[in-house]
């Protein structure tokens, strides 16, 4: 897991690409194979993978990462409004602007570490959120959120196509970016983003980041300037978030300030932790699980529960419904919070960390028993 050869890397990527692209098929039994949800898997996967580059590799816990998500969304929607409905410029703008934001916020926040870093990023996130709601209304359209209008400028589109009736849709050179094409667009970007994250993790740069996590002081004593490395990691991670934000706008051209709220930042932390901090697949798994259960759990209500447990006798049925109903539907956040606590308390490595631990133990046992057999024979 720690170091993989170049060839193994490519093989892993190929497998990963197949898994991601075939999601519409193998997720059918889970009832999750519809485009809206699949898009969310891919988008929040990118967000979590990016967050993991910062938190997983360097150990800097940012509590304001959703700012970059919001900035990416706003930039993308403005690109739709001003230039063209094509998604490529929107994505580029989203990444670019969130990169600039990350540079500014990182420049200030990275002067401190530990809990202070978390609070600085949180402060910046709250500042951006409050500003987006109040003074910056001309740019962000305040509480309503930034939306497309019929009479937007769309300079580039105006040169080529007659404006049609109704709102134009986001497209990639004519392919409409809703439904499955939208998912595949996000999925391809997810694969690219994942590959980049993999390369970063296994590069000397990634090694330096991991060294910062384990002992920054010592790095400093050996004459190693950690600032540029941290800055790059923060910016890369911010740009990933911007990409995710832009993709959110691509699949649904609307941007609201609540995307920047600190609960949104908390959500990506949850995803990363749930899956496994610092592992490659963990954040993806966490993002997928949270979005999946959010969808499934919050759609359940008492009637549906009654139906699910209808095979039980009445009394047991009512009992089960009584026990479970506070945790589904509106109570989904309760489940999430509880699950999150359980993971932190008992399984700090997340799901992937837990699996790895069990696997190692199993291998050790097998190794030990094989040795014993070798001795006896």
């Amino acid at each position, binding site marked *: 897991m720690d170091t993989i050869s170049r060839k193994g890397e490519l093989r892993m990527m190929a497998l990963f690409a197949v898994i991601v692209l075939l999601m519409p098929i193998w997720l059918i039994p889970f009832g999750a194979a519809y485009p809206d949800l699949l898009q969310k898997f891919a988008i929040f996967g990118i967000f979590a993978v990016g967050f993991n580059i910062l938190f997983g590799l360097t150990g800097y816990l940012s509590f304001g990462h959703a700012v970059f998500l919001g900035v990416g969304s706003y930039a993308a929607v403005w690109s739709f409004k001003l230039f063209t409905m094509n998604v490529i410029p929107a994505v580029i703008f989203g990444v670019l602007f969130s990169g600039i934001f990350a540079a500014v916020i990182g420049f200030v926040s990275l002067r401190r570490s530990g809990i202070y870093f978390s609070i600085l990023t949180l402060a910046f996130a709250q500042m951006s959120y409050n500003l987006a709601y109040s003074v910056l209304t001309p740019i962000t359209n305040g509480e309503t959120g930034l939306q497309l209008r019929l009479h937007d400028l769309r300079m580039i589109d105006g040169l080529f196509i007659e404006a049609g009736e109704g709102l134009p849709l986001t497209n990639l050179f004519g392919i409409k970016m809703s439904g499955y094409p939208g998912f595949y667009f996000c999925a391809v970007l997810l694969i690219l983003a994942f590959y980049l994250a993999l390369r970063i993790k296994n590069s000397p740069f990634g090694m330096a980041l991991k060294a910062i996590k384990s002992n920054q002081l010592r790095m400093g004593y050996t004459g190693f300037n950690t600032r540029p490395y941290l800055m790059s990691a923060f910016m890369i991670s911010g740009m990933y978030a911007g990409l995710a934000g832009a993709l959110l706008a691509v699949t649904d051209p609307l941007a609201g300030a609540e995307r920047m709220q600190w609960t949104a930042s908390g959500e990506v932390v949850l995803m990363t932790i749930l899956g496994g901090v610092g592992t490659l697949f963990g954040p993806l798994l966490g993002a997928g699980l949270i979005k999946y259960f959010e969808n499934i759990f919050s759609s359940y209500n008492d009637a549906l529960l009654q139906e699910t447990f209808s095979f039980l006798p009445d009394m047991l049925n009512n009992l089960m419904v009584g026990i479970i109903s506070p945790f589904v539907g509106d109570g989904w956040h309760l489940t999430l919070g509880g699950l999150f606590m359980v993971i*932190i308390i008992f399984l700090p490595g997340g799901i992937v960390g837990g699996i790895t631990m069990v696997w190692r133990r199993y291998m050790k046992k097998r190794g030990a028993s094989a040795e014993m057999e070798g001795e006896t024979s």
Partner: protein
Amino acid sequence: MDSIFLQILNGLDKGGAYALIALGLTLVFGTLGVVNFAHGAIFMLGSFCAVTTQNLLTYSKKVKDESITYFEAFKEVPYLEIWWGDTGSFIIDYKVPFSILLAIPVMLLIGLAMERGLIRHFYNRPHADQILVTFGLAIVIQEIVKSIYGANPIPVPAPAIVAGSASIGSWIGLGESVVYPWWRLIYLANALVVISAVFSFLKFTTYGMVVRAGMQDRETVGLLGIDIQRRFTVVFGMASVVVGIAGVMYTPILSPDYHMGMDFLVLSFVVVVVGGMGSLEGAVVAGFMLGVLQSFAAMNEIKSIFPGIDQIIVYLVAVIILLTRPRGLMGRKGVMED
């Protein structure tokens, strides 16, 4: 002049709330070294103690309304009024002060249970883990409260006698026009009383002295044969009581809902950081300072020069302080240095 005076009062008032919450937060920091993101949730639980008291006291029975004679009308009459008449309505009117009596033992129990049940296991874990587990706990507490009391804010009015405004201007010679709500004055006084109570407990009692010694050097105090851990647990309970009282008293100003804690948490963390981690005086000073700054920034004259400054002033100050005085205003050396 008048408006400046009122803004100062407003600021002190807000600052009182910040200071109370931040005081508990920093008390936990200084003693147990734990970053408690569930502190806001405890504040919220405090204000829901007031809601519970209100619900209990006004538990009512449907009685036929005699004053309406055209049709059969019923009205809800609380049992207390039926039993005790005027005394009953008096108690109901004073529900907020009475709910403090409920809040103190309840918050103490919650605090002790939280410390023994969860926080204890996180002393030696990284700060990130502490933040995350308490964050999860805060979500759980919030959602439980939401499922019991619903998502809407529940108004809990102050006693009728202090519902109006005090003509504070005529007291100090600024004219009759300068008025200020009574309850906010009471809140400020309450904040000052609680803060001084905490400080005198720590400074003037032997128990408090030992706690302060433990904050300085935990190991040595332990070597002297004192069970410092138990005292820190009690301090955690005390911090919960302080923030719980802050919550109870705040209910007439802001109708409690399930996510009010989170809103205050972010602010009070900023207050703690500005004041200096683990410094009690710092938390109080920073709380009042940020409150006053915030209410001045909300003045129209200032908003016209710096649009939007009222929204970000607190965070801006925090960023500046953290960059120029890394330990905060009164941070001690060696506390949360990294």
